[in-house]
C-alpha cells in the first residue's frame, strides 16, 4: 500500500527541486518569524537569500535540544500562540521538557506522514489498529491516532498497560495492526502465549518504535506474533512519529524527505558525511508552520541509502538507529556506543540490558569493564555455567566493538537507576 504514490515515488530530480523550493521558503519563514533563528543567522552572517541549492543548507547553523529548552515554553513558535491548536512535550528526563506546537496545517501534515507510515505496514481502511502508544503529551499515541483515522482504519486508543484487556480486545476485535514499543509487544506476546490464545491473534503487522531495538527482537516478535515487525522513527522536536517508517522490505526506514530534509554529519567535526556513512542525523522541517526546525541535531546515529526501493518508493532510507552521538565514547581511539554493547548483551540468552560501562586508564591504556546484572533467567547454581555466560558476553561485546572488555557479574539492582534513564557510562580516566 502506498498512501501518496506521487510524493513517495517521485523521481529524485523532481523531489530535489521540491525540497529546494521548500527549503528556501522555510528558511525565510523562520528568519522572519522566529527571533531565535534571525539572531543565529545574523551571528553566522547568513541571509535567507544565500540558500540557492540544497547543499547550501550546510551554511546554516544547527539547532539543538538545548536551544529549545532555552526558548521554553513558546519561544520557538513562528506563529501567535492562538494559531497553535495542539501542544506536545518530550519527556524532559533532564531539565525542562521540550515543547512543540502544531497549527492546524501541522496536524494535517502529521496525519499525512503517519498515514504513509501505517500504509507502509499494510494498513488500509479495513484494518483495526490497536494503538498501545501512550496518549497524552507524548506524541506516540495521537500520532498513530491521526494517521489511522486519515486512512479510515478503526483505531482502538487503548494506550499501554492493562495487559489482560489488551489481549481480550486483540482477540475479540480481531486487531490486525499493533502499534507499540517493541518491548511492550514482546511482553504482550508472552502473555498471549501464556493464556494459550496465540491462535486467536490475527495481527498482520506491528509498527514498533519509541525505543532502540534489534534485529533479534524483530525475529522474536515475528515468530511469536506471526506478523511483520516494522520500525518507525520520529521525534517530538520535528513532529513526533512519522518522520520515517520501514516498508515490508525491511531494509531501512523511508524518510518523508519531502517534508523532513535529512543530512548525516560527523558528530565530531560536524561536517557532512558521504552517502552510506554512519553519522548523526540532522533534520530540517520543510513545511512546519507552528515550529520550524532548521538543521536540528537529532543525536541519533544512522546512515542513509538512496535508490528505488523494491516497494517502488524513491524516498531515502535510513538504517536502524545504532546509537546516540551524545553517548559516544572513545576508547583506545575507537568510537564506541553503549548501545553496541547493549545489543551484544541482548544476543546472549537470558541476559537483560541492565549494565554499566566503567572506563579506567590504569597504565596509560584504556580498560573497559562491563558490569552486567545477573538476572534470574541467566543465573545457575553452577559456577561453570555462570563463567560460560560471562565469557560469552565478553566474546559478543568484542565482536561488536572490536575491543576486549572485562565483564563482571553483579547483583541485580546494584547498578543505580536514576529516574527514567540509567547512567550507562562511568568514565574514570584521568586525561
Amino acid at each position, binding site marked *: 500500500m502506498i498512501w501518496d504514490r506521487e510524493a513517495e515515488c517521485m523521481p529524485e530530480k523532481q523531489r530535489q527541486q521540491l525540497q529546494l523550493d521548500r527549503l528556501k521558503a522555510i528558511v525565510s519563514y523562520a528568519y522572519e518569524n522566529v527571533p531565535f533563528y534571525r539572531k543565529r543567522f545574523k551571528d553566522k552572517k547568513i541571509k535567507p537569500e544565500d540558500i540557492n541549492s540544497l547543499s547550501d543548507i550546510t551554511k546554516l547553523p544547527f539547532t539543538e535540544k538545548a536551544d529549545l529548552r532555552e526558548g521554553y515554553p513558546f519561544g520557538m513558535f513562528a506563529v501567535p500562540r492562538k494559531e497553535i491548536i495542539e501542544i506536545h512535550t518530550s519527556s524532559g528526563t533532564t531539565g525542562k521538557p521540550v515543547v512543540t506546537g502544531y497549527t492546524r496545517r501541522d496536524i494535517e501534515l502529521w496525519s499525512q506522514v503517519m498515514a504513509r507510515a501505517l500504509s507502509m505496514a499494510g494498513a488500509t481502511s479495513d484494518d483495526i489498529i490497536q494503538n498501545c502508544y501512550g496518549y497524552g503529551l507524548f506524541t506516540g499515541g495521537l500520532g498513530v491516532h491521526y494517521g489511522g483515522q486519515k486512512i479510515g482504519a478503526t483505531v482502538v486508543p487503548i494506550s499501554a498497560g492493562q495487559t489482560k484487556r489488551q489481549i481480550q480486545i486483540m482477540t475479540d476485535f480481531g486487531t490486525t495492526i499493533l502499534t507499540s514499543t517493541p518491548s511492550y509487544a514482546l511482553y504482550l506476546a508472552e502473555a498471549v502465549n501464556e493464556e494459550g490464545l496465540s491462535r486467536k491473534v490475527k495481527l498482520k503487522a506491528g509498527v514498533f518504535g519509541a525505543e532502540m531495538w534489534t534485529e533479534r527482537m524483530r525475529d522474536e516478535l515475528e515468530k511469536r506474533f506471526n506478523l511483520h515487525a516494522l520500525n518507525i522513527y520520529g521525534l517530538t522536536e520535528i513532529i513526533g512519529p512519522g518522520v520515517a517508517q520501514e516498508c515490508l522490505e525491511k531494509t531501512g526506514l523511508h524518510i518523508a524527505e519531502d517534508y523532513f530534509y535529512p543530512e548525516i554529519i560527523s558528530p565530531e567535526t560536524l561536517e557532512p558525511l558521504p552517502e552510506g556513512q554512519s553519522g548523526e542525523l540532522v533534520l530540517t522541517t520543510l513545511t512546519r508552520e507552528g515550529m520550524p526546525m532548521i538543521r536540528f541535531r537529532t543525536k541519533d546515529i544512522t546512515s542513509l541509502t538512496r535508490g528505488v526501493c523494491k516497494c517502488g518508493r524513491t524516498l531515502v532510507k535510513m538504517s536502524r538507529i545504532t546509537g546516540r552521538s551524545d553517548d559516544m565514547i572513545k576508547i583506545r581511539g575507537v568510537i564506541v556506543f553503549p548501545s553496541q554493547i547493549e545489543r551484544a548483551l541482548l544476543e546472549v540468552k537470558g541476559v537483560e540490558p541492565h549494565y554499566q560501562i566503567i572506563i579506567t586508564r590504569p597504565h596509560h591504556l584504556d580498560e573497559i569493564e562491563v558490569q552486567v546484572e545477573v538476572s534470574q533467567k541467566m543465573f545457575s547454581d*553452577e559456577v561453570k555455567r*555462570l563463567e560460560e555466560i560471562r565469557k560469552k558476553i565478553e566474546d559478543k561485546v568484542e565482536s561488536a566493538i572490536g575491543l576486549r572488555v572485562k565483564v563482571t557479574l553483579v547483583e*541485580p539492582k546494584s547498578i543505580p537507576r536514576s529516574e527514567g534513564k540509567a547512567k550507562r557510562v562511568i568514565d574514570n580516566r584521568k586525561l
Partner: protein
Amino acid sequence: MKVKQISIFLENKKGHLLEVVDALGKAGVNIRALSIADTSEFGILRIIVPDPDSAKKALKKGGFTFNENDVIAVGVSDRPGGLAAALKILSENDINVEYLYAFVTKSEERAVVVLKTDDLDKSIKALKKSGISILQPKEVYSL
C-alpha cells in the same frame, strides 16, 4: 528422592552474605545445610532449608537473584572411605559430579553428602543399586 536446593548469587562485596542470611533468618527460615562456591568475582551460596517456598519468598522480597534446583542427598557411613565408596559408583557409571558438600548429622553415625551430578536420575539408580542410602527430602529437611 530429589531434594530441593536454593542457590543465591553473591557479588563479592562486604556484607552481601550477611544480607542474604539475615533476610532468611528474619523470615524464620532455618538453614539445614549450606555451601559457598566462590570465584575471584562472585560466589554462589547453596542452601537446603525445610521450607523452600518461604525461603524463596523472602529472597524475592529482598531482591536477590536465586534459583531452585534438585540435588541428591546420600547417607554415607561416618568413617574413612565412606565417601569414596559412593563416588566410585558414580565414576563407574560414567556420571560427572558437578559439585558436592557434606555435613555430619548430630544424632546418627553417618555423614550426609549433597550431590549435584550431570544426570541425577541415573545417579539415584546407580547408587541405590549398590545399596547406598539416599535420603528422602523429609529426612534431609528435618536433620
